[in-house]
């Protein structure tokens, strides 16, 4: 379970402070996959970054006892001057994955991301699709209770989409996904709970179809 309590987040802009959301309360029930959607700029990625601990709320709290992954998005959390391999090693080290376990993660990521010789080239030479695949493969290689996925699988080709579908099904047995996507059919396929975001509101629908209806109406 993840609880958002009185969560407020704003960014300073030239026109003054812009609130992404103000004093929102929400509960994401345990053991369910969660799909988040809403129009562009509704704060979906911001929410994901807050959940992943990459960004901090102005006030309020996110309460959970579960291990939440880093957010996997198109921008990817990589150091451009390092190779893909060194980035993977870095992430292993900060998650205290060592020795043969680290080797396992590396070969899993190489196998899953399928970026070939680019794995040993600096990440700044990657296309955005390659970055996203590397980030996605890396998060799947580390064990978490919640995986935060931001639109990533949309960039892959057919084969990558099939692979990510399979790994989602596999992961759903032991962990949960929180997916941000505009691809409604994919969200419906994997998620039971729907979260609709618009104008700083966060609506948690127990039935994904209710959230989809709200989204279509908006």
């Amino acid at each position: 379970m993840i609880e958002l309590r009185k969560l407020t987040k704003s960014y300073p802009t030239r026109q003054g402070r812009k609130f992404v959301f103000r004093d929102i309360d929400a509960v994401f029930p345990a053991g369910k996959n969660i799909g988040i959607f809403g129009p562009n700029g509704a704060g979906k990625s911001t929410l994901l970054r807050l959940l992943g601990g990459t960004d901090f709320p102005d006030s309020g709290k996110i309460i959970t006892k579960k291990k939440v992954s880093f957010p996997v998005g198109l921008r990817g959390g990589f150091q451009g001057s390092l190779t893909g391999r060194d980035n993977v090693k870095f992430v292993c080290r900060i998650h205290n994955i060592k020795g043969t376990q680290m080797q396992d993660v590396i070969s899993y990521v190489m196998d899953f991301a399928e970026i070939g010789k680019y794995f040993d080239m600096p990440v700044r030479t990657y296309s955005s699709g390659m970055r996203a695949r590397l980030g996605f493969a890396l998060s799947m290689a580390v064990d978490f209770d919640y995986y935060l996925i931001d639109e990533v699988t949309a960039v892959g080709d057919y084969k990558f989409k099939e692979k990510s579908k399979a790994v989602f099904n596999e992961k759903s047995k032991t962990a949960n996904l929180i997916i941000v996507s505009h691809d409604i059919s994919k969200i419906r396929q994997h998620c039971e709970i729907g979260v609709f975001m618009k104008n700083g509101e966060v609506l948690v629908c127990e039935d994904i179809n209710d959230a989809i209806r709200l989204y279509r109406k908006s």
Partner: protein
Amino acid sequence: MLSKSFQIQRSVIFALMMRELKTRFGVYRLGYVWTLLEPALLISVFISIRAFRALHRDFPGIDTPVFFLTGIVPFYMFKDIISRLMGGITANEGLFNYRQVRAIDPLIARFLLEGVIYLFVYILFWTVMTLFGLNTTIHDPLGLMLIYLVLYLFSFGVGVIFCILYTMYEEARKILPIILHPLLFISAVFFPMQIIPKQYWGWLLWNPLVHVMELSRERFFVSFRTTAGDPVYLGVCTIAALALGLSLYWAGRKELVSR
């Protein structure tokens, strides 16, 4: 709980140090050559200029290259720590995607790495000079180490201040060379304060590096005496730099990683 977060931070800093080693001593860069070459060149330039050789003749038993070593290597450590720390956050932006990595971590990693590098550089120069038969006997090794430790901490404080300024306002990058370049000439790096007429001391003594140079030389050379170096002033400056740097960091720690 506390020990767990300490353990996480330790592995983050280790991971960041490995990452820094890759880019600082990367395959395509001659980073490590420059670290040695720059002070070595400066020392040889100073030795070859006769006017500089005469600067410290009032102290018997001090060999010129050793005198320059005690000024130039610590000065370069100070300079390098500040410039490395300044870019420490912007150069690692991608890695703040992981909740374990806090804004201060890359700074600590770079600080530790520079410390190891300059300890190595100092020992290397010292050894080479000893092999060449120069008088490299250290009169008070513990006292010397203490002064260098204080310099090391002072550099961290100043480096963090510059890092926060630079990360918030990019223009700060332009200020640093303007400060650092003249500093080489007014910090008693290649002369003892004794040769400076007393009426100019007032201004020069505001600079904490002058105190580092004077105090460290007093501990290195048995015949060197300083009336300029004030350990209390140096200590106060160090504590002030650390306090200012860390409070700036604390105030901006969330904003620093999310931009």
